[in-house]
């Protein structure tokens, strides 16, 4: 197990290296060098420019600049935001918490809703229950997350049942910690539900297909033949084998979840990383864009690592390979 995790970690090093390089390159394919761009921006003071020049080596060749930049990110110095006049890392910190809580909330909801539905549909395969569920799942897969968010905002605005936008109510400072947490959760509901509804369809379909595949395999026949009770077969043999691939796919789906979360954040006005990078792009705040891109990639890598470790726990074959 230890060796497995270690190997995974070593595998990440070139990936991380490549990601920082790509983040860096993207900014540098832009016409004009960053220094002249900084000078043209009236919001940037000459002192900031001087400081940036020093810490990021902006007057040196591009490759040297990359290593300057790499050295800086390793010490969590991501540069200065030109529009907010604060270090980028402090801006990202608050937003990162909101994006992570949004993603975890919706991933959790998606899993506890779609797995039972998938198993149920697997048991009722080719009957009307499965056909109905699969048709609804098709609709869910085909609705873009931003449109689901728009529809939910519309209903929330019409019915006034859910707060729209922000992470807390107006006077929440006076509340107790528990009440403040509940207030946060209430605000999380709208973006969280949008993202969940967007994700249920595909996970449902995967669960159903895996369940069916596992259900039709020889070891299930063996289990029936030796007279095991049905519930034992379903939960111990079929379900466990059906869920394993889902954990592997989790890492893959995470990319979509993070992208979806970013769009949903913009629509429902949830202050997360997605809105941050949009604001940064609109105000041409290059260092903030670069940092957001990199952080989102690292988030995805960590998610994948988590999935890899989970699958090693769940599946001995992976562990021993």
């Amino acid at each position, binding site marked *: 197990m230890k060796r497995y995790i270690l190997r995974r970690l070593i595998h990440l090093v*070139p*990936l991380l290296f*490549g*990601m920082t390089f*790509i*983040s860096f390159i*993207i*900014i540098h*394919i*832009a016409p004009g060098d960053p220094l002249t761009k900084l000078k043209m921006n009236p919001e940037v003071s000459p002192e900031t420019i001087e400081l940036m020049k020093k810490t990021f080596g902006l007057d040196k060749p591009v490759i040297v600049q990359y290593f300057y930049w790499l050295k800086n990110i390793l010490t969590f110095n991501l540069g200065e935001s030109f529009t907010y006049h604060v270090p980028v890392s402090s801006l990202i910190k608050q937003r990162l918490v909101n994006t992570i809580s949004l993603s975890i909330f919706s991933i959790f909801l998606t899993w506890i809703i779609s797995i039972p539905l998938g198993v149920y549909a697997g048991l009722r395969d080719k009957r009307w229950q499965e056909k109905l569920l699969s048709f609804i799942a*098709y*609709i869910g*897969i*085909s*609705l*873009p997350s*931003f*449109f689901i968010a*728009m*529809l939910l*905002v*519309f209903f929330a*605005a*019409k019915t006034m049942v859910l707060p*729209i*936008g922000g992470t807390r109510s107006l006077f929440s400072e006076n509340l107790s910690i528990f009440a403040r947490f509940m207030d946060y959760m209430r605000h999380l509901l709208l973006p969280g539900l949008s993202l969940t509804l967007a994700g249920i369809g595909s996970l449902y379909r995967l669960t159903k297909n895996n369940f069916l595949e596992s259900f039709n395999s020889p070891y299930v026949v063996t289990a029936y033949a030796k007279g095991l009770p049905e519930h034992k077969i379903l939960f111990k043999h079929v379900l466990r084998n059906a869920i394993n691939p889902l954990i592997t796919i989790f890492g893959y789906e995470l*990319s*979509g979840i*993070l*992208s*979806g979360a*970013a*769009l949903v954040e*913009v*629509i429902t*006005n949830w202050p997360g*990383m*997605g809105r941050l*990078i*949009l604001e*940064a*792009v*609109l105000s*041409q705040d*290059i260092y903030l*864009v*670069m940092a*957001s*891109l990199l952080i*989102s*990639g690292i*988030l*995805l*890598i960590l998610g*994948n690592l988590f999935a890899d470790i989970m699958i090693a726990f769940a599946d001995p074959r992976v562990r021993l390979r």
Partner: protein
Amino acid sequence: MRTFLRRLRKTNKIAYFSFWILVLLYLSAVFADLISPYPYDLQHRDYPLCPPTFLHFFDKEGKFHIRPFVYNMKLVNPSLNTYEIDYSKIYHIKFFVKGPKRKILGIIPSERYLFGVEDGGKIFLFGTDMHGRDIFSRILYGARISLSIGIVGVSISFLLGLLIGGISGYFGGKIDTFLMRVVEIIMMFPSFYLMLALRAVFPTNLSSVQVYLLIVVILSLIGWASLARIIRGMVLSLKEEEYILAAKSLGLSTPRIIIRHLIPNTFSYTITALTLSIPGYIIGESALSLLGLGIQEPYPSWGNMLSVTIGNLRILTTAPWMLIPGFFIFLTIISFNFLGDALRDILDPRKW
């Protein structure tokens, strides 16, 4: 093509239906300026946020009209944008009515419109936006952008993917390891963030044509990675097939093997993968335009038509018909999904 359609009709009714919906959508995009009752940028100043017009067959006395007609809307309260139906006069729907001059398909100048109403009447099938522009017409024009970007984007990604995946799978070794690492790194960024970061490289004020090309380039730069991986996998497995060995031992040239034997065998899989990846490009364009980074006003795309509703709850609640473009995005995507899945079932060689 015909046998394919027949098979589709027999095996999968929904996919068959989806196919014709897509044909209809693409045709209406091509002939947008013929079908739409108004030009996309014509502002009806007296009708901001006007609700959809309904077609009637029976008038107030219950008399039946063979030719459907509409009533005009009257703005009762300009500050709240409330409208009332004006029952005093009926306007019949007519074909080939006169309107402002425009060029059909950019070539044929004409002032006739396929359909419209008698003089003085207005027909807004899906309502109007806050500038009083007809949403139905704008959806037809917007379809040109939103629908074509899927096809163009997929084609470019496919070419890139074919080239890079092909090289990777054919040569193997160090080239393969390197290229697949690059693919892996690109796929390790959430596409939304990568899309926005790439967009940040370019200025925000570009002409419509530049923006269109830019969106295609950005989406293809992100999309080629997964296609390259698929194609590489296919090339790797096909390389080992016996008929390739047979072709080689018969002394066929490498290009001939690739063109006559390798590529046709990848078709069934790539066509499915392409059909199923088109929705991603449509969503990508909509998302960029929605955020104000894509197609700019006054030219419509399905994404930027939705953008006014973001953070503007008053417009959203008083004029929910502003969300109609979203249903068109949905309709297109679900049709592509149904069709793609049916293609997979039909083209799957294991089934024969």
